[in-house]
């Protein structure tokens, strides 16, 4: 058993265990899932020890053929960090859902299969392999979204499937252009061979086509309509998984394709796109009442911030990557807490849930940690990434826009914080019970969020091997800015949002049907073509 085969084993072990659990429909075999997950964690640690001795990337050719004609698996610092993130979040999901879905073999089959395919997506070095894994992820996510078979989830599932499949078809179109002009589909060889000239030749059109597909998959501005419907109609465990991790797969492909092409003219376009995404996500989130819809639009808004962080003018992408990890942890924390709240109160509307601090103390602390992280308070993980992004921006106008986005974030979160108020009728006592296995993931994820906020320098320098600037926690200006943001958001909330004007009701009921979304997609592609000229 050589150490070099561990990348292939990381892909195969979850898939084979999932198939085995499905064949033997007996519920005692479901315990194998802990064995598989433990094996995967152990093997990835062993591989990280082996990987640390070399100073650069590691390749594995399947079948021992030469590099130009075989399928190659590649591991570098970015993919190792993502592998650790995947393992942690999958552990949380499995522990959270163990007690109530103990006898459900089909659910664990799909969950383990998705994990295996996701490991394959992170490690591959071949463009067509990437396409196949993205499509399989789409199909299995659809099945998991509509697992509960209610009316809402079936409608959201169809919309998600059709729209993502049309988007990924454009990825295939871009690949056809690349194959015609270069003759190979290996990412390393393409990095050396592609040279970008001016004008409208085949390589530039292939870049635009691939970016259109990546834009659909990771929820850029005009084409993010599938995300709020899918993430709010899914079961809570799957929402945490989707919002925390699978949306980031589109951004991972975005980073890899940008590293392959090395193109610089589109950076300002993506910064403007990120601004539009973040602000429109925030405005829609302010108008919603349902707790899961608010969190789903919040994901869109944070992805806008990540896109701004990944497209800095000087090419430094550290801020964006740190925000990907911080967002994964606190968004999963918030969605898992929302799952516990909805299970106990049997109610999704934030105007009707009250009095949570007495009933569920640990979950309340979890929600408060999530709020402090997402709003960027010092000592929590959101502050680090947002500061790094703000230092890298060149224009002052963009820094003021970032402050506006922060104010919008705190405003829509005030709606969720309503649940801590006392109930109007003091005689209602809920007598709620929470199982222990649902509280353990919230505890662990909260600890990780605080830990990433305080000990950021050793962790990120060890994992990403880049130097991170030292950020002071006790600068007087930053605390003043933070408290003024809180005050502005609170007054906006009290004056405008709580009264629930007609304009806000109209924004809440906006719903774009499927043919119109395709129309927006074509406008997106045409805008990119015009920008290139």
């Amino acid at each position, binding site marked *: 058993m*050589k150490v070099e*085969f561990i990348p*292939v084993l990381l892909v*195969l072990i979850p898939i*084979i265990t999932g*198939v*085995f659990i*499905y*064949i033997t429909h007996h519920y005692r075999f479901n315990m194998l899932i802990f064995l598989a997950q433990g094996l995967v964690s152990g093997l990835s640690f062993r591989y990280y020890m082996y990987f640390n001795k070399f100073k650069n990337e590691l390749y594995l050719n*399947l*079948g*021992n053929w030469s590099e130009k004609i075989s399928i190659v698996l590649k591991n570098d610092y970015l993919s190792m960090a993502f592998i650790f993130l995947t393992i942690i979040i999958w552990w949380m999901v499995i522990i959270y859902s163990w007690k109530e879905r103990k006898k459900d073999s089909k659910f664990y089959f799909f969950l383990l299969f998705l994990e295996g395919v996701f490991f394959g997506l992170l490690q591959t070095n071949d463009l067509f392999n990437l396409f196949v894994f993205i499509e399989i992820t789409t199909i299995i996510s659809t099945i998991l979204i509509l697992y509960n078979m209610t009316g809402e989830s079936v409608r959201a599932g169809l919309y998600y499937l059709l729209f993502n499949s049309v988007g990924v078809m454009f990825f295939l179109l871009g690949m056809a252009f690349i194959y015609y002009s270069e003759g190979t589909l290996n990412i390393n060889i393409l990095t050396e061979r592609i040279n970008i000239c001016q004008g409208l030749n085949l390589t530039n059109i292939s870049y635009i086509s691939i970016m259109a597909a990546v834009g659909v998959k990771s929820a850029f501005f005009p084409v993010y309509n599938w995300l709020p419907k899918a993430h709010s109609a899914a079961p809570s465990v799957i929402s945490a998984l989707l919002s925390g991790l699978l949306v980031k797969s589109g951004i991972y492909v975005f980073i890899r394709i940008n590293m392959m092409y090395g193109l610089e003219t589109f950076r300002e376009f993506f910064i403007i796109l990120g601004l539009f995404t973040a602000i429109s996500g925030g405005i829609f989130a302010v108008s919603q009442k349902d707790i899961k819809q608010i969190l789903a639009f919040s994901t869109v808004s944070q992805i806008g911030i990540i896109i701004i962080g990944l497209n800095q003018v000087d090419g430094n992408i550290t801020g964006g990557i740190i925000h990907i990890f911080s967002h994964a942890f606190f968004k999963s924390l918030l969605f898992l807490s929302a799952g516990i709240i909805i299970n106990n109160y049997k109610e999704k509307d934030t105007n009707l849930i009250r009095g949570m601090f007495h009933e569920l103390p640990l979950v309340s602390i979890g929600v408060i940690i999530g709020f402090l992280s997402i709003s960027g308070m010092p000592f929590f993980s959101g502050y680090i990434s947002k500061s790094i992004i703000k230092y890298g921006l060149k224009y002052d106008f963009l820094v003021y826009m970032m402050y506006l986005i922060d104010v919008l974030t705190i405003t829509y979160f005030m709606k969720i914080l309503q649940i801590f108020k006392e109930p109007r009728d003091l005689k209602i006592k809920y007598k709620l019970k929470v199982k222990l296995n649902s509280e353990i993931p919230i505890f662990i994820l909260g600890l990780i969020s605080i830990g990433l906020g305080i000990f950021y320098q050793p962790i990120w320098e060890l994992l990403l091997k880049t130097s991170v600037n030292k950020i002071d926690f006790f600068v007087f200006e930053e605390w003043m800015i933070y408290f003024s943001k809180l005050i502005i958001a609170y007054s906006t909330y009290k004056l405008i949002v709580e009264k629930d004007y007609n304009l806000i009701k109209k924004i809440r009921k906006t719903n774009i049907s499927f043919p119109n979304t395709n129309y927006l997609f074509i406008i997106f592609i045409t805008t990119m073509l015009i920008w290139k000229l």
Partner: protein
Amino acid sequence: MKNSQLLVCISRVLFPFILVFGFYVIINGHLTPGGGFQGGAILATAILITYFIIPERINIIDGLVRLEKHLFLWIIVVGSLSLITKGTFFTNPLPIPAGISFKRIFLVLLNFLIGSKVAIGLVAIFTSFIEEGRS
């Protein structure tokens, strides 16, 4: 649902020929164009033509789907045989100077497993549609 007599009659004649052609494409996959997937699709066509002849046919969808997963595990096992002899996944386990009549056992076996898996998979998909439409 009324079927036309002409279609039923021609399907009865055509069924064994399509079956033989499907097996021919699978087993000779290492010499002529074709192979596992293409032959499997032809086999699925042959089995589905029998829905014209006898409208009430296969009722065991669960058994078919589980059989397909069994075949998937066998494909992984055959693919990992080369781990013992040569040290990597998914190549021919016999060494290179061996005669061609031994080396083609691996190719024919793998083509056969993939072909039957594809055929059973496609039949299961279409059967579940017909069951859904009937109920």
